[in-house]
């Protein structure tokens, strides 16, 4: 049975972004209703022209740099394309960075505030990375 899954990404390290992207892509492609809220240090990887190489936390992050590991941005994109996952930039983070939705990758949805995100998340599961 499909479920509602809300994923909050705040940390800008490779391991955390990778795990969030893996869960988002598999859950979305399995028919779950997935929303990913991108804020704090996780958002900048979705700004056009920004580096996509996130710093590692430890050994696994280094191992993941090898060929054959799908990059987290590709997995988030597949979550959106194959499973209709919503990738939602935090409106507060956009304000702080002094950027607008036009500065973000095309697969991102509208800037979203916490009130809206929390009310949409109601009744489902929430994971934070």
């Amino acid at each position, binding site marked *: 049975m499909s479920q509602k899954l809300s994923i909050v990404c705040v940390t800008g390290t490779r391991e955390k972004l990778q795990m969030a992207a*893996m869960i988002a*892509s*598999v859950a979305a*492609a*399995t*028919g779950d209703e997935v929303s990913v809220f991108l804020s704090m240090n996780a958002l900048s990887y979705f700004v056009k022209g920004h580096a996509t190489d996130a710093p590692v936390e430890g050994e696994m992050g280094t191992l993941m740099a090898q*060929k*054959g*590991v*799908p990059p987290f941005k590709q*997995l988030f994109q*597949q979550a959106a394309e*194959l499973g209709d996952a919503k990738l939602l930039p935090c409106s507060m983070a956009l304000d702080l960075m002094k950027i607008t939705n036009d500065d973000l990758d095309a697969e991102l949805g509208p800037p979203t505030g916490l009130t809206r995100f929390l009310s949409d998340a109601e009744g489902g599961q929430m994971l934070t990375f």
Partner: protein
Amino acid sequence: MSDSKIVDARDTFCPGPLMELITHMKRSNVGDTLELLSTDEGSGADVPEWVNKVGHEIISNEKIDGVWHIKIRKAK
């Protein structure tokens, strides 16, 4: 007429093989057969789990010389 094709996802890590399969499934027609090749150890159990959950059909699943060959029929 139903098609049969091979999805070669060898040398990619989880969830790469599954995402490759799903990408090709989306582009296929009901009744088509896809054979996924994967060297990711978890694929042998994880891919059938996805196929059954979503409602497609596993035709065969075997490991030959370190490569999983998983045949799936698109059922819907």
